[in-house]
């Protein structure tokens, strides 16, 4: 059965739409796992100032920046692609689906690059 699930992510002979779907599913699962981690990590707020601030000091560092940037890419992609899906699932603009896909990907890249830049500047203490 796992081999079958991997077929959700096969791209040979498939169009960009399949890849968009696979990425949407993958980022959704990744974000759900992150949600659980985030909720757990927030418990440290209840444990007091030292615990919370040491957590922040460990995670808001240049070493974790790569993970943060990838996470933001996953989040922005899932959100913007999701908006594209809402559009189509409500019955609008199937004929223009290729252009809408390209525009969505462009928006994802622009928003992600801006967010990553801001995070980079923040972590580097600028």
């Amino acid at each position, binding site marked *: 059965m796992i081999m079958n699930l991997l077929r959700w992510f096969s791209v040979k002979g498939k169009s960009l739409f399949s890849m968009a779907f696979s990425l949407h599913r993958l980022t*959704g699962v990744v974000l*759900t796992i992150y949600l659980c981690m985030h*909720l757990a990590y*927030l418990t440290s*707020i209840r444990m007091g100032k030292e615990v919370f601030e040491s957590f922040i000091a460990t995670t*808001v560092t240049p070493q974790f920046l790569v993970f943060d940037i990838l996470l*933001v890419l996953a989040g922005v992609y899932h959100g913007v692609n999701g908006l594209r899906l*809402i559009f189509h699932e*409500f019955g609008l603009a199937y004929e223009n689906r290729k252009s809408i896909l390209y525009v969505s990907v462009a928006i994802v890249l622009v928003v992600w690059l801006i967010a990553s830049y801001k995070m980079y500047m*923040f972590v580097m203490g600028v």
Partner: protein
Amino acid sequence: MVTDKNEMHTKRVLEPLAWLFQLISGLILTVLITFHFYETHFTSHEAMKYGLVVARLSSLGYKIMYALLLFFVAFHAFNGIRAILLDTNFGAKYPQVVNSLCFLAFLIAFGYGSLLLLAF
């Protein structure tokens, strides 16, 4: 096979409502998560200091915003997992197990997160 008229109504309405709410919660989340990210990263370098975090958690306005964010994100995430599981043969054979597990996961996530909001 459906036997009871009431059961038929509930059963028949779960899927379309879940689908619609998945789309609506997705829409709302794009706004709430952007705001949450903006709040924690784009306002000031002090935004993640303990004092300010607690100040936000103690204020009613933010509590409501966080509660809504938690509700919509927990629903969207676990309904998404539910859809993924129902797409498999396992989900075809045991839909009730999948529905119950995902609902339970949603309750646990929402409950656990709310503890934080209630603590301040």
